[in-house]
């Protein structure tokens, strides 16, 4: 379900603060690095979030999984330290560095105490600028990745995700797991790690934010020290993905008592003027709460599932509206029928005035609650930068939601919910569900 992971990253970007102290400072370091900072002095640590536009979709043909393996190996030895030496040094500082890769973004999340700030930055810098990529470290991490790939191949949820992506995106990198396949990962060399790093780490694709016990001036110097040595430019960006799936159902037989279904069709771009309306629609239809239409119809009224939900998945080179449901093999057919009905219904008649009002109250009230901790705020701020939202958006976002009219919402409902294009990928042995159009 990698696509849903991305979604979490993106929705964070909508947050708004309640914190009296959320005062975002925009700064440019002496060396020219732009960053957003919230100075929060009450706890002596700093959360630093660094992102590079371009994630696993930058994998070269035949090298699927290279960027993921590279990111997982960054911490496995740098400069004079081998893998264990690096870990011991980081632990002695009580710092944490996390390296992650998603379809369109690679992320570095660091957390360190004020008292260990300079030493932690110096150590992280070696991982970014002087990773060793020792063959023994690559092979050890590779064995872990291969184990994960094998486990995913017997997990119904992962099987559904892989098949949906493959059917939806053809030969684009989005069509396969960012971990790669057994074959591609086995073929990756040390040079592939070096190349992958060169494709990803570039200052012109970099976004930075920090929250914690540090001033703007100190942060500027820290960023120059940490990131100033990275190259200005990286590899070419990815290509647009062409959505290829049409309406219908695909059943992947799998021996399990409960089926998993992924369902959806093409979605809406993040920079589309209708995006905010689509976001509100999705919240009412299949968003996080218990009150969504799908939760009400499939779970609360009929007891067909423990959980059902939908998400907007606006990736940089393609976009989906995607849902997931799990249901016993005996009841999956009914779950699918109910979801298809609801999909058609919202496309035809949109929301009621009451639903829109309730959604506005919820979304505008909940925005502030996202700003709860240094690391979450750092992630929100870097997400906003990547989408191109101004600092001011934190103040205006709720006004944008409140300004949506029912007519506008329902026009967008007709546009984005397309029952004639809805495709279900079902993994399991669902009674009365067959592959077809």
């Amino acid at each position, binding site marked *: 379900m990698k696509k849903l992971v991305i979604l979490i990253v993106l929705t964070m970007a909508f947050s708004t603060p*309640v*914190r*009296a*102290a959320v005062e975002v400072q925009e700064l440019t370091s002496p060396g020219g690095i732009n960053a957003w900072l919230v100075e*929060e002095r009450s*706890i*002596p*640590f700093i959360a630093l979030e660094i992102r590079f536009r371009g994630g696993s979709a930058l994998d070269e043909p035949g090298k699927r999984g290279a960027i993921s393996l590279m990111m997982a190996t960054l911490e496995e030895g740098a400069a004079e330290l081998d*893998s*264990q030496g*690096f*870990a*011991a040094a980081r*632990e*002695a500082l*009580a710092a944490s560095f996390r390296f992650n890769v998603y379809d369109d973004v690679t992320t570095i999340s660091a*957390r360190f*105490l004020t008292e260990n700030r300079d030493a932690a930055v110096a150590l992280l810098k070696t991982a970014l600028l002087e990773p060793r990529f020792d063959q023994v470290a690559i092979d*050890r991490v590779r*064995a*872990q990745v291969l*184990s994960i790939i*094998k*486990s995913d*191949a*017997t*997990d*119904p949820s992962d099987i559904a995700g892989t098949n949906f992506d493959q059917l939806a995106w053809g030969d684009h990198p989005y069509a396969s797991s960012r971990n790669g396949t057994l074959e591609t990962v086995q073929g990756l060399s040390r040079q592939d790690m070096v190349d992958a790093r060169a494709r990803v780490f570039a200052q012109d694709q970099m976004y930075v934010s920090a929250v914690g016990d540090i001033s703007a001036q100190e942060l500027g110097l820290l960023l120059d020290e940490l990131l100033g040595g990275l190259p200005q430019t990286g590899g070419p960006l990815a290509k647009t993905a062409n959505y290829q799936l049409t309406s219908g159902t695909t059943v992947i037989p799998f*021996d*399990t*008592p*409960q089926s998993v279904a992924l369902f959806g069709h093409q979605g809406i771009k993040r920079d589309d003027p209708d995006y905010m309306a689509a976001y509100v629609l999705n919240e009412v239809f299949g968003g996080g*709460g*218990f*009150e969504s239409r799908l939760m009400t119809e499939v*779970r*609360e009224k*009929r*007891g*067909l*599932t*423990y*959980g059902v939900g939908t998400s907007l998945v606006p990736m940089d080179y393609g976009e989906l509206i995607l849902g997931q449901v*799990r*249901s*016993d093999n005996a009841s999956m057919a009914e779950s699918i029928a109910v979801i298809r009905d609801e999909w058609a219904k919202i496309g035809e008649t949109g929301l009621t005035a009451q639903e829109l009002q*309730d959604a506005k*109250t*919820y*979304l*505008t*009230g*909940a*925005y*502030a*609650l996202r700003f*709860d*901790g*240094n*690391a979450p705020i750092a992630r929100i701020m870097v997400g906003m930068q990547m989408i191109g939202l101004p600092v001011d958006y934190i103040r205006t976002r709720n006004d944008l939601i409140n300004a949506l009219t029912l007519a506008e919402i329902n026009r967008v409902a007709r546009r984005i919910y397309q029952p004639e294009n809805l495709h279900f990928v079902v993994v399991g042995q669902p009674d009365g569900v067959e592959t077809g159009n």
Partner: protein
Amino acid sequence: MPRFMYAIFAVVAFALPGRAADVTTFTLDNGMDVVVLEDHRAAVVVHMVWYRVGAADEPPGKSGIAHFLEHLLFKGTDDLGPGELSATVTKNGGSDNAFTSQDYTAYFQRIASDRLELVMTMEADRMRDLEMTQDDVITERQVVLEERGTRVDSDPGSLFREQRNAAQYLNHPYGIPVIGWRHEMEQLNRDDAFDFYQRYYAPNNAILIVAGDVEPAEVRALAEKHYGPLEPTANLPERLRPQDPPHLSERRLSLTDARIAQPFVTRSYRAPERDSGDQFQAAKLVMLAEVLGGSAATSVLGQKLQFETEQAIFTSASYSGVSLDDTTFGLVIAPTPALSLAQAEAALDNAVAEFLEEGVDADQFESIKMQLRASLIYGEDNISAQANRYGAALTSGLTIADIQAWPDLLQTVTADDVLQAAHEIFNKDNAVTGWAKPAETAEVQQ
């Protein structure tokens, strides 16, 4: 998704509570305990009610009733319609949920701090005035059966954990899964739920935790107004569960499932939990788990099995002392494809035996203590997690004093203490060993 996550908190309970200075506690006249954790950085509050009842307190044959009842608490009261509580929280921009473990059941809302009274009013209402129709009960029973399908039956790792757990406890109800055995869940009814509810859902069996941007005096006034009038349950039974006899014989299980791609071996030893006023044995075991399996690159098992011999893809050692009754200390090895499970188990045993000979590395031990001290600072950034730690500890037989003594207690553990704890805990007569195997592997057990 409400009403879930029953097993998660035990795993994270190892993390440490934060500053003690911001904690205020008092007890209402009807016996309800109140804990206030202040964090004024954001205008947000977490409001939680923890009941001192969990799956291990269920009557025989009614497995799953504690968790099923947790779902039914959202079905309405004399004043609230079905789903109205959650809907009201949502409309006010908040979120709500609940979770059940072996030792506790908890309900919470997270919302802007000026809405505290709203959520408190509703939570107090459902402590004594639950109502539900037969139809609601039948439909919700389908939901928890689907939940079992999602969490357990679809996941061979969970199925195996359930089987190993059942073998771990010879007599204690911890051997019964929180979500329940399917054949018993299918028979749970409205009367079962109400019997359990009326006995255990009462102010003298509950702990209110309010964390965030609140003043203790304000919480006291609101709690007295909304929870104060609720009737306590008379003659609330003491929480005495059937205890295990001495374990005299090693138990071994294997599970073969086509859905297992990565084989692994588990070993879990019976272990003492944190007891009020007597937490030092548990503190030693926490440090032992950190030394053995805390970090892949620097722990004993990681270094020996993942780095030196390269026999393992993954290793771990785990222990959580937050539990009302005896718990377990666990080891795991997931071997590389080159090893059989018999070889993997031997490698794990060998690594532990070497550790008992070699003792604790002084640098590693100091680094672990430093990281524990740092986790207190990082922990201040997450008031919700602190509230969870207080709730889990207080419903597992510990006191505020125990919780506040714990971080310093961990710092007093010595390397010799760790080694001594290791010698005591690693007794196979107390242990369950599990082999998880993909379908095609035909391996003979030792």
